[in-house]
């Protein structure tokens, strides 16, 4: 079997039956932005813009290196951006400009979901 054959036969997200180490029973308090990212996924699904299945394909399309190295919601938000570019709902340029603008702001002004974020933040600090 060639080395590349495995890449063809198995997509990066397809893990069933592979060898792996013991299950680490890790859990973490979801960060506010992770929860918002999840809420965004649900909303985009409700609006029939990105279905659960399209989201999974979007993550797969990131390729094995990103699937391996990015965290769960990091993969989601990057996949959403790519899908929104493909659907011409957003352009890469718009996103780049907006990200610069967001990054330059005092950070406490960037959470319009104030109450929920503040609650979750406290949990995180305590943990």
């Amino acid at each position, binding site marked *: 079997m060639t080395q590349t054959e495995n890449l063809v036969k198995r997509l990066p*997200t*397809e*893990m*069933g*039956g*592979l*060898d*792996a*180490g013991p*299950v*680490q*029973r*890790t*859990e973490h308090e*979801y960060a506010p*932005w992770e*929860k*918002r990212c*999840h*809420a*965004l996924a649900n*909303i*985009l*699904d409700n609006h029939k*813009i990105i*279905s*659960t*299945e399209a989201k*999974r394909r979007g*993550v797969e399309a990131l390729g094995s290196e990103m699937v391996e190295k*990015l965290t*769960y*919601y*990091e993969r989601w*938000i*990057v996949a*959403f*951006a790519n899908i*929104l570019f493909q659907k011409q*709902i*957003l352009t890469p340029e*718009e996103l780049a400009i*907006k990200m610069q*603008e*967001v*990054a*330059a702001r*005092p*950070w*406490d002004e*960037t*959470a*319009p*979901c104030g109450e*929920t974020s*503040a609650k979750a*933040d*406290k949990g*995180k*600090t305590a943990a």
Partner: protein
Amino acid sequence: MSSHAHANTPAPDTGDAVPGYYEVMETAVRELLIEKKVIGAGEIRQMLEVMDTRTPALGSKIVARAWVDPEFRARLLANGRATLEELGIDFFEDTQLIVLENTDSVHNLVVCTLCSCYPREILGLPPDWYKMKPYRARAVKEPRAVLAEFGTVIPDDVEIRVSDSTSMIRFLVLPQRPKGTEGFTEEQLAALVTRDAMIGVVRASNPEMKEKSR
């Protein structure tokens, strides 16, 4: 210049003085979608509120009810989604819920080998280990070894059925009612049902019985 202003800005109580790249991306995508009126301004906050109501406590109540009400259990097993919709639980479009009943001869385990499909409507967000490689890779190949890592030993004469979720089909395990709970109220029973028992990695157990048997 902006980096200076940034560094001097007092951080909110997140503990993160500077937002990460992906957090910035999430904020930017969300704001652009709202500016373009692709999504409504209040939708994310409303969805966060809905998500906060979805916790394993909901699943525990459903299991306890199935234990005390045979007619409800029969309907739940026949059509999980329709039965729970009668209780006012909303499901995502086209998502089916299959309830898997554990018995003396069958133990059920739920996994999503492809991603992280999970009955979020009744259990909330999945634990990290459910989304990570070791559980996803091995649950379908060596379920007994995986269960043992959760401290669950299933006798060899009990069949283990592993169900692999998809975006359209989600599973909930209906654990066996623990022994010695005959006089328990529905509320007391619900307290014995953990999230992990509804994924199938542990049994529902009666702590009083455990102490007696040891």
